[in-house]
């Protein structure tokens, strides 16, 4: 099939960007969206034009590296019948003659590096602030010494499947990183091992979230709707409960 692509091209962080049009023939519907971009890049290279920069790695929807806004929705969520990452979106969801608009994640906390590539290191900094359980290697007790209720362990798992792609931030009208942050909170809070640091963790992560320039949540639900891993919106309520409770505890008072 033939398609027309309108792609955001931006030379670097400080350059002005704009949409450019490209024509592609011979797109097969078995291709993934990124394979279609590969094809475009092969054509551009052949024509001595600089290929479009975009992030990708595993191409099986688990590493979280890829992420572009396709026709206005993160990962092209609304082009696909099921939740998806960009790399798992297939061209069979488009039609011959379609015009497809492709943009990078746009958020204050995710500056554009080039074309469709953005800097998501703010997510790492949120994890650094407290998205872990403090246990040095070798100091762990026997795995069966603390049973974890299956129902809670499953809930923890659901939240732990977050791939850190940033679609939630890209889709959020406020550029909030709440779904990401709350997924980690929900993961660790539902396990017995996560209890000792629970109050400090939520304070530290929420503080890091704000320090890194993410906006505030308005409970709109756009984030959960585009999430490729279906992290539920309830995670944010869990974070809110924990944060409010933590304000009445002394954890993190000392500098």
């Amino acid at each position: 099939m033939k398609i027309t692509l309108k792609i955001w091209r931006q030379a670097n962080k400080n350059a002005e960007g704009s949409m450019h049009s490209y024509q592609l023939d011979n797109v097969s519907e078995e291709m993934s969206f990124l394979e279609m971009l590969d094809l475009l890049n092969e054509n551009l290279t052949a024509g001595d034009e600089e290929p479009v920069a975009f992030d990708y790695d595993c191409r099986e929807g688990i590493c979280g590296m890829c992420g572009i806004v396709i026709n206005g929705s993160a990962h092209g969520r609304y082009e696909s019948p099921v939740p998806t990452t960009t790399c798992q979106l297939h061209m069979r969801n488009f039609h011959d003659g379609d015009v497809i608009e492709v943009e990078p994640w746009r958020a204050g906390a995710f500056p554009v590096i080039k074309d469709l590539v953005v800097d998501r290191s703010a997510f790492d900094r949120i994890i650094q602030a407290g998205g872990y359980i403090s246990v040095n290697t070798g100091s762990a007790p026997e795995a069966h010494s603390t049973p974890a209720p299956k129902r809670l362990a499953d809930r923890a798992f659901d939240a732990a499947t977050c791939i850190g792609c940033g679609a939630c931030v890209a889709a959020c009208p406020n550029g909030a990183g709440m779904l990401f942050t709350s997924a980690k909170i929900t993961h660790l809070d539902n396990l017995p091992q996560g209890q000792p640091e629970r109050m400090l963790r939520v304070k530290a992560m929420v503080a890091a979230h704000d320090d890194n320039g993410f906006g505030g949540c308005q409970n709109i639900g756009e984030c959960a709707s585009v999430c490729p891993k279906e992290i539920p919106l309830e995670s944010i309520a869990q974070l809110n409960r924990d944060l409010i409770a933590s304000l009445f505890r002394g954890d993190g008072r000392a500098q």
Partner: protein
Amino acid sequence: MTATTRPPASNPYYTLGAEIHDTKAPAGPIEKKWSTRKFEAKLVNPANRRKLTVLIVGTGLAGAAAGATLGEAGYNVHNFCYQDSPRRAHSIAAQGGINAAKNYRNDNDSVYRLFYDTVKGGDYRARETNVYRLAEVSASIIDQCVAQGVPFAREYGGLLDTRSFGGVQVQRTFYARGQTGQQLLIGAYQALERQVDAGTVTMHSRHEMLEVIVHEGRARGIVTRDLVSGEIETWYGDAVVLASGGYGNVFFLSTNAMGSNVTASWRAHRKGAYFGNPCYTQIHPTCIPVHGEMQSKLTLMSESLRNDGRIWVPKNPDDAEKDPRDIPEEDRDYYLERIYPSFGNLVPRDIASRQAKYMCDDGRGVGPLVTEVTQEGETQQRRRGVYLDFTEAIARLGRKAVEDKYGNLFDMYAQITGEDPYATPMRIYPAVHYVMGGLWVDYDLQSSIKGLYVCGEANFSDHGANRLGASALMQGLSDGYFVLPNTINDYLAAGPFEKIDDMTQASQEALESAVSRIEKLLAVKGTRSVDSFHRELGAIMWEYCGMERTEEGLKIAIDKIRALREEYWKNVKVTGVNEDFNQALERAGRVADFIDLGELMCIDALHRRESCGGHFRRESQTEDGEALRHDDQYAYVAAWEFTGDGSKPVLHKEPLKYEAIELKQRSYK
């Protein structure tokens, strides 16, 4: 010894060097070796640790675990990865699970049995001492991960669930639905980020290692390229750890991440690190078949699917186009159950893969016709796929139970193929998945360059000629959490070493080499894209150095690769400049290294005139078509030394001694 299998004395492809041996594993009974080694290794006073710098390349299970653990110990760690975040490393894609000798099931499991299974599964081409240690520390890995908050599957009582996994008869595999690798990596990543916050680890993402700096025989630093700005930087330390993963992408189409590459390992190899058993490649039997020409990678589905799914092809080639549901039971050939009655669909990966290939070679494959060029140079059309059928499992367990167990895999299949696996059988075909080969290391995980350590898939160590399911995660974490942090101190105790900087000759040479290579790549300005070369290399490797290898085929492959290399450096087209985010340039450097590696893999495969594990030589098989080893001649690790561009590599043999386990021909019948 038979005359037919003896390599010629003068070989056009390589020269034979001196034998090598691992000198680090202490003497004594195998179950005492690791504790003895830990006791004998020199220690570093905690107060001195922050004066010692360790550079770690890669942030997968091995790299992140090592970074976190060394950081906790107080060393000054710098960690590098080419991705935008350490959490993206390809360990994240492992699905099935992680083995550990916990014996929670009371099914006769033990450290010894895990050790035995791993050596046997590796077709007796692994080093006993390393494998025993792997089995020994496996139980601690589970403890560590649970404490970190890894949400393993649990039973209603709140205790950990386990399942049985490819090629073994005990249930020792711990799992987190179909995303075990992801959960383990996130655990290690979080531990790493905790150390970043603590100031012991400095993380450098979007940095690719281009050279090792070897000063006075010691690995003392690395040269990296900042993938955003193009800046070429040097980093110095007292030891360098490579945890840069496997090189399956030499086949272009593999289940590896697109960015996975051999560059770090290959650059170290060129500086003197021996490459161990490069030809040992694992082909995974349950991948989604190729769809077309622009295919960029293959997707694996966990082989846990083989626990409940049944693999078959039509008995009659004419049924290939029929709806599989319309093919009656008596016209189906459940070939694995037929040939291997006791293991059935759970035979090791190499056997399952090869049998699928044979079925398709026999014309009984299913799915779309794919055009191929045969080794004889003819074009032919074949169907490359076999059915993986859950009809019976759905009838027996109910759709709900199947959904709970395999739901995410089924969804993945449906998303990629557009077919509903609950309604029709899935189509699968083998694909390159893992490489057992890698840089040669001793018991301490130190390569043949002093101070250069290699962890995880990047080293050759624990899997021999074939890796068992759920053992890669175990090895990565074992190396990173428990082995390296207890051996590297033996080396670092002699440090800090003399300070070096950009003025040191070794640094200047490494810098110069990295810069000139980039300039050379950009200067070619040819007509073919980097990817087109990569695809061609992959096609050569898959055809001649894939599931089945032959003497003539490998020789053809070597010639073709040499011609490809020549064309590459004359005709590759790399757009853009170095001082920019330039993905074409990144790939160009990696493909150049893959070409060189491909040649060495073929030479290794050619020299090993036996079949073992993932390495199957058509000339060496039993009467019923099984891999036939020649223990009298090939019970050694092939460690290859680089001697310069265009000159023959030197083969060093490390003889494999089996003291705890008796060598046997593997049988899964």
